[in-house]
C-alpha cells in the first residue's frame, strides 16, 4: 500500500527526471522555433541553453507564455496546434526547479536543430528586392494602425492569371518579423502608396480599399507557409503585384530585411477559388479606464460557405475574442476562441476539417477590450482614449473559404464588402492623435 502510494507520488512529481528525459519535450515544443535560424530569441537545443536560463524559462512556462499558441479550448481542431500538454509543462518545470540535472556520468546530448521542409516541386520564389532595414525601436507615427508595420510591393510580372494552392514567406530577420499577410493587386494601388511614401516600401497597413491584407494568406511565428487543402486555390489576376504587410517587432538593433515570397502553383483544374469574408467591428470608442468593453458584430451568410481558415486581427487593448456561428437549425458552433489575445502572435489558423456553414448562418464575432493599466499589454502607459475606425475593420476575423460555386462565392464576397462599406461610411476616418513625443 505504501509502496503504491510512493510510486504514484514519484510518477506525478518525476523528481528523478534528467536531461535525457525532458529533452524530447523541449525538442517537440520549443526547439522548433528556438534554434539559430528560428524565431526564438535564443536557441533551446543544448542542456546549457536551458540550465543557464533555468528560472527565467520556468517562469515563462508557469505563466503559459510559451510556446505561443493563442486559440483556446473551445476552438475546433486546428492544424499545427502548439498547445503544450499539462503533463509536459509540469515535468519540464519540475526538472528546471530541481536544478536541471543530467544523468550521472553522461555527457548531455544536444537536440538536433529542426530541418525546414522544402516547398513542393514547381514552387517559385519572388524576392523582396528593396533594401529595407527594420529600425531598432518603434517609429512614432500619426496613425496607430501602422505602428511596427511596413508594406512592400513585389511585382509578379505575370502575363496570365495565376492559380496557386499555397503561399510562403522566408524572412532574413525571423526573430523580428512576426506576421506577414498578402494581397494581390492588379490595379497599381500598392504602387501608388509606395510612390507617395519617399522611403523604401510604405508605412501603412496592407489593406487595399476593400481587399483586406491576408485575403491571399499569410504567415506568422513558427509558420512559414500556408497550403490550402485539396480542392481550393487562390486566383491572382494577370499583371499583379503582391502587396505584403510586414509586422515586425523592433529588437533594439537595426536588422536588414532580405525576404522572399513563395507561390505554390495549383495543378488540379476542378478546384474552387478562395475568397475572403471579413466580419468584425469597424470602429471602437473606448475611453481610457474602461475595463470590460464589449464589441460585437453579426453577419448573416447569404449563401453556404465552406471555411478553411481564419485570420484574427485586433490591437492589444483587446484581451479576448471569439468567433462563433449560429446555424439556422439553432445550433451554435465556435470557430475560433482566443481567451488571451496578443497581436504579436497573430497568424492564420487552418481548420483540420472544413467548416461547412449553411446559408443563413449568423457569424457572431465578440471582442473584450480592456483599456486600463490593469491590462499589462495595453500599448499605452498610461492608457489613452481609444477612438479608431477603419473600413476593413478595427477588430475582426478574415474567413478564407469558398461558396458552393463561383456565383455563391461572389455573392458572399460582395455582401461582406457591402456590409463593411456601409458601416465604414458611417465611420469617418478617425485618427487618434498620438501623444506628442516627449523631449528626448
Amino acid at each position: 500500500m505504501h509502496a503504491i502510494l510512493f510510486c504514484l507520488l514519484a510518477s506525478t512529481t518525476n523528481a528523478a527526471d534528467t536531461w535525457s528525459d525532458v529533452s524530447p519535450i523541449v525538442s517537440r515544443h520549443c526547439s522548433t522555433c528556438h534554434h539559430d535560424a528560428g524565431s526564438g530569441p535564443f536557441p533551446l537545443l543544448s542542456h546549457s541553453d536551458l540550465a543557464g536560463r533555468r528560472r527565467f524559462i520556468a517562469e515563462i512556462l508557469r505563466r503559459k507564455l510559451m510556446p505561443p499558441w493563442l486559440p483556446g479550448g473551445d476552438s475546433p481542431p486546428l492544424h499545427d496546434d502548439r498547445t503544450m500538454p499539462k503533463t509536459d509543462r509540469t515535468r519540464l518545470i519540475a526538472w528546471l526547479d530541481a536544478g536541471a540535472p543530467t544523468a550521472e556520468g553522461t555527457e548531455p546530448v544536444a537536440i538536433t536543430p529542426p530541418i525546414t521542409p522544402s516547398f513542393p516541386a514547381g514552387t517559385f520564389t519572388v524576392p523582396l528586392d528593396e533594401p529595407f532595414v527594420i529600425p531598432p525601436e518603434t517609429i512614432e507615427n500619426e496613425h496607430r494602425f501602422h505602428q511596427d508595420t511596413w508594406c512592400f510591393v513585389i511585382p509578379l510580372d505575370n502575363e496570365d492569371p495565376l492559380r496557386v494552392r499555397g503561399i510562403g514567406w522566408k524572412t532574413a530577420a525571423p526573430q523580428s518579423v512576426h506576421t506577414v499577410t498578402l494581397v494581390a493587386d492588379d490595379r497599381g494601388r500598392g504602387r501608388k502608396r509606395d510612390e507617395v511614401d519617399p522611403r523604401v516600401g510604405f508605412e501603412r497597413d496592407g489593406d487595399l480599399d476593400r481587399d483586406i491584407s491576408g485575403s491571399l494568406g499569410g504567415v506568422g511565428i513558427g509558420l512559414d507557409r500556408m497550403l490550402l487543402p485539396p480542392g481550393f486555390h487562390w486566383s491572382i489576376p494577370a499583371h499583379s503585384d503582391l502587396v505584403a504587410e510586414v509586422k515586425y517587432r523592433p529588437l533594439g538593433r537595426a536588422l536588414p530585411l532580405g525576404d522572399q515570397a513563395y507561390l505554390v502553383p495549383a495543378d488540379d483544374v476542378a478546384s474552387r477559388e478562395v475568397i475572403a469574408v471579413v466580419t468584425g467591428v469597424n470602429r471602437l470608442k473606448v475611453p481610457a479606464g474602461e475595463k470590460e468593453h464589449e464589441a460585437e458584430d453579426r453577419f448573416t451568410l447569404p449563401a453556404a460557405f465552406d471555411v478553411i481558415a481564419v485570420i484574427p486581427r485586433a490591437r492589444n487593448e483587446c484581451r479576448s475574442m471569439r468567433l462563433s456561428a449560429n446555424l439556422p437549425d439553432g445550433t451554435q458552433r465556435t470557430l475560433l476562441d482566443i481567451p488571451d489575445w496578443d497581436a504579436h502572435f497573430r497568424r492564420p489558423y487552418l481548420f483540420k476539417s472544413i467548416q461547412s456553414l449553411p446559408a443563413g448562418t449568423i457569424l457572431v464575432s465578440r471582442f473584450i477590450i480592456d483599456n486600463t493599466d490593469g491590462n499589462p499589454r495595453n500599448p499605452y502607459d498610461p492608457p489613452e482614449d481609444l477612438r479608431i475606425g477603419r473600413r476593413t475593420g478595427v477588430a475582426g476575423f478574415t474567413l478564407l473559404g469558398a461558396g458552393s460555386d463561383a456565383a455563391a462565392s461572389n455573392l458572399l464576397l460582395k455582401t461582406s464588402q457591402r456590409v463593411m462599406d456601409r458601416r465604414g461610411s458611417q465611420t469617418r476616418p478617425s485618427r487618434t492623435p498620438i501623444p506628442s513625443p516627449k523631449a528626448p
Partner: protein
Amino acid sequence: MRTPVITLMCVWLAALALAGCTAPPASLSDHDGLVHTPLDGDEGDLVVVVFSSTDCPIANAMAPDIERASRETTEAGGRFYLVHARPELTAERTRTHAREYELTMPVIVDRNHDLVRTLDATITPEAYLLRMRGNGRYDILYHGSVNNLYGSVGNRRQNISEHYLRDAVRSAAAGKEIEVSQRTPFGCYIERN
C-alpha cells in the same frame, strides 16, 4: 579592511535602507582590457550600473534607451557601466554585441558575480543609480527598471513612454529628489553562480 561581513551587511543595508553601503574592491576589466572599479569614486560622483545580457530579448529591446541614458549620464559628469552577468561570455561576444546594438559605454563581464552580489541584482536589465560618498561608500538613488517598455514579462508595450533611469539621472544631476526610487524590473533572471 573590507571583510565579507561588511559586504554582506552592505547587501542587507542596500536592500533595506538604500543608503551608505561600502563597496568591495571590485575591479573588473572591460572587453578592451581597461580596468574599472565601478563602485569606487570621489564623494558626489554619479555612477550608473545596468545589468544586461547579450541574449535577453528584453534587455536587448531596451539597448537604444540604455545607450541614451548612458550618454546623458556622461554628459552630466557621471560614469555608466553595462554589466553582463553570464560568466561564460567572451570579450569577442560582448564586443560584437556592443557593436550590433551600438552601445558605447564600458562593458564589463562580472564573471565571479562580485557586482551581482554586492548590489543584489536579480534581473537583466536592472539599473542602479548610485551617488558616491567617498571611501568606497555610496547611496543607491534609484534601483529597478530602465523604462516602461514591458508591463510585465511577456507583455511588451508599443512604445517607451516613461524613461525611469534617464529621469532619475536628470533629477540627480540637477540635485532634485527622485520621486520613485525603486521600480520592479522585468526581464531575464540572473542565474547566480
